[in-house]
């Protein structure tokens, strides 16, 4: 058990990678064995993430050095700096890891019956597991170059999944847009990494954070990194790929691609808080993040209201919700250099933003799955053609109501808790931002009222008389997320104190991240 905990940072990445390449081999033998392998892998990953999380909350940051003679040997003999690949898992990384693993598990279970009628399913599961590898690797790595590599793994598998249903022309278009913006973004990130290497001859995040000077070149690198990661997480005005890609990706993978973009949000804040930290002019970059966040919230939600394609509507809401996280964490970033303001409201704003990441991953994942269930059962994504579906699909409509109430911030659901934390703390930073956030929440409710009214209520339409409820595995996938949402709604204090606040402190406390690798040199 102890050995499992020590090796779990790499096992979490390596086991899905191994399983990803075993699936094509095993599916030649038996399709059932392959499905069992995929689900078992993801359950095991979830288990590893949870035991790793428990250990991190008890003992602190976990370091894993690949290829060394001991996992904690970060700096080899005769060297002054770390040269090996190092995985560094702190409370923030593991927080994102739990989200990724949980959503992936629910999505894979949901996919089991959803993908029954598709061809090339062994490739589908390979890509799905590779996406899990990309997300978890991006979250656990302690190395700028590996961040780029995992970002590319995530992008390639995500794009291939989005374009998986090649019989639809729009699926290919969505996938192509995703891979183009990902390729350009990732190359720009590589350029920024090259700038770091040119100045400091280092790639390790902790080692770089120790020596970074915030020179002119570092400013350019920061601008490139922030923009490229903002594009990957779909912040306005770089959000336009998101509705195209999210709306065409097959069910199950839509929440995963969304969570993958949240992993890029994590990377953005890892760069801002840990790599640059207080050396940079935090107020400026904080305000830039806040402005991107506010724009995302407002443009995302106003575009969502006028959509008539249910998955595009959901995708624009995903953009809008990312704005809340950018707002909360941006306020924290803006006051990072000011300890009094940070203690008074900055830390709470960050906690709100981080809590919103997990809440949003859950209910947005659930809503994406319900939207895809409608598409699966009705064969259309057009809200104008739907109506009266709560007669045929009782469970789906209940799941949709819960998700819609949670995303609109209606008490007592979990979305309300995190939004309340953001409103209160941001109000003390700048009241106007808080008012905009509340306005956006109201429009969110309005747009989900519209979606619910057009899809589920109203008289039974004759063309959908024979529509049946979705298959069991799809209901189990959605039910899993619903149960977690209800748990989070009932016990927000437990979640905030056990997993959210440690994550916030891990982001703020740059010194402990550096010391974990550099050993206080």
């Amino acid at each position, binding site marked *: 058990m102890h050995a499992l905990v020590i090796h779990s940072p790499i096992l979490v990445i390596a086991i899905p*990678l191994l399983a990803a*390449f075993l699936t094509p081999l095993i599916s030649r033998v038996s399709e059932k064995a392959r499905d069992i392998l995929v689900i078992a892998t993801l359950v095991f990953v979830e288990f590893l993430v949870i035991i790793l999380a428990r250990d991190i909350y008890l003992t602190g940051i976990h370091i*894993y050095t*690949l*290829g060394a003679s001991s996992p904690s040997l970060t700096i080899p003999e005769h060297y002054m700096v770390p040269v090996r690949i190092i995985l560094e898992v702190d409370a923030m990384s593991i927080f994102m890891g739990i989200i990724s693993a949980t959503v992936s598990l629910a999505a894979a279970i949901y996919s089991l019956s959803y993908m029954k009628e598709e061809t090339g399913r062994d490739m589908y599961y390979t890509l799905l597991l590779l996406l899990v590898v990309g997300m978890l690797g991006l979250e656990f790595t302690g190395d700028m170059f590996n961040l780029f590599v995992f970002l590319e793994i995530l992008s390639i598998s995500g794009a291939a999944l989005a374009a998986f249903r090649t019989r639809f022309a729009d699926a290919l278009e969505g996938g192509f847009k995703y891979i183009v913006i990902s390729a350009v973004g990732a190359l720009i990130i590589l350029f920024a990494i090259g700038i770091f290497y040119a100045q400091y001859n280092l790639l390790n995040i902790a080692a770089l954070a120790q020596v970074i000077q915030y020179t002119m070149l570092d400013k350019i690198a920061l601008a490139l990194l922030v923009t490229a990661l903002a594009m990957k997480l779909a912040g306005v005005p770089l959000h336009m790929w998101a509705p195209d890609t999210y709306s065409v990706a097959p069910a199950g993978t839509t929440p995963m691609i969304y969570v993958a973009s949240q992993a890029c949000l994590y990377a953005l804040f890892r760069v801002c808080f840990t790599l640059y930290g207080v050396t940079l002019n935090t107020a400026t970059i904080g305000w830039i993040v806040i402005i991107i966040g506010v724009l995302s919230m407002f443009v995302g939600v106003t575009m969502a209201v006028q959509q008539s394609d249910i998955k595009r509507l959901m995708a624009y809401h995903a953009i809008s919700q990312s704005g809340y996280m950018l707002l909360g964490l941006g306020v924290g970033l803006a006051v990072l250099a000011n300890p009094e303001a940070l203690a008074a409201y900055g830390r709470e704003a960050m906690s709100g933003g981080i809590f919103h990441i997990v809440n949003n991953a859950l209910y947005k994942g659930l809503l994406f799955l319900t939207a895809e269930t409608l598409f699966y059962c009705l064969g259309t994504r057009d809200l104008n053609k739907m109506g009266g579906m709560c007669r045929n699909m009782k469970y789906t409509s209940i799941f949709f109501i819960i998700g819609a109430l949670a995303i609109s911030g209606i008490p007592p659901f979990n979305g309300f808790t995190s939004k309340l934390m953001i409103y209160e703390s941001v109000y003390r930073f700048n009241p106007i931002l808080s008012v905009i956030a509340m306005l956006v929440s109201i429009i969110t409710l309005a747009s989900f009222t519209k979606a619910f009214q057009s899809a589920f209520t109203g008289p039974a339409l004759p063309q959908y008389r024979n529509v049946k409820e979705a298959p069991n595995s799809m209901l189990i996938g959605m039910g899993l997320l619903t149960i977690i949402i209800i748990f989070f709604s009932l016990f927000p204090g437990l979640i905030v104190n056990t997993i959210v606040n440690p994550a916030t402190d891990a982001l703020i406390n740059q010194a402990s991240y550096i010391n974990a690798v550099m050993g206080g040199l």
Partner: protein
Amino acid sequence: MMSKIVRTISNLLTPLILIFGLYAIMHGHLTPGGGFQGGAVFASGIALLIVAFGSYNIQKKLKEHHFSILESSGAVIFIGLAFGGIATVFFYNFLVGSSIFGHIPPPGSNPGDIWTAGIIPLMNIAVGLKVIAGLSVIVLVMALASSKIEIEE
């Protein structure tokens, strides 16, 4: 299918290209080269065959799913080798000191010794397998698809 001259020349050249690719894979731990480079050279030999003989004729001998199996096994071998060192650390070079590729050369100038570098040559072979399969299947599938478009038009 191209003219007889092209076919004859490519018949002569292909074995040389393939052998050079395999050499680059096998000696990757000593000389410039390695799994990806050698695999790319090998796949360019297959691309030459496809260009000379047409994708349909090649597809009769080389099926896509064979490549798929080869690619997956390459990846599985690679990760399996990385898992081999898990007793110490993932990716630990557990073959150092053993009789297979385990010889440790003295530092500084020394005559070349093939049996060095531990798991690295084995990993080169695994990566080589994967790259050969991956690049060949990409070229083959694209050639097949583009020839189909030409036939349709």
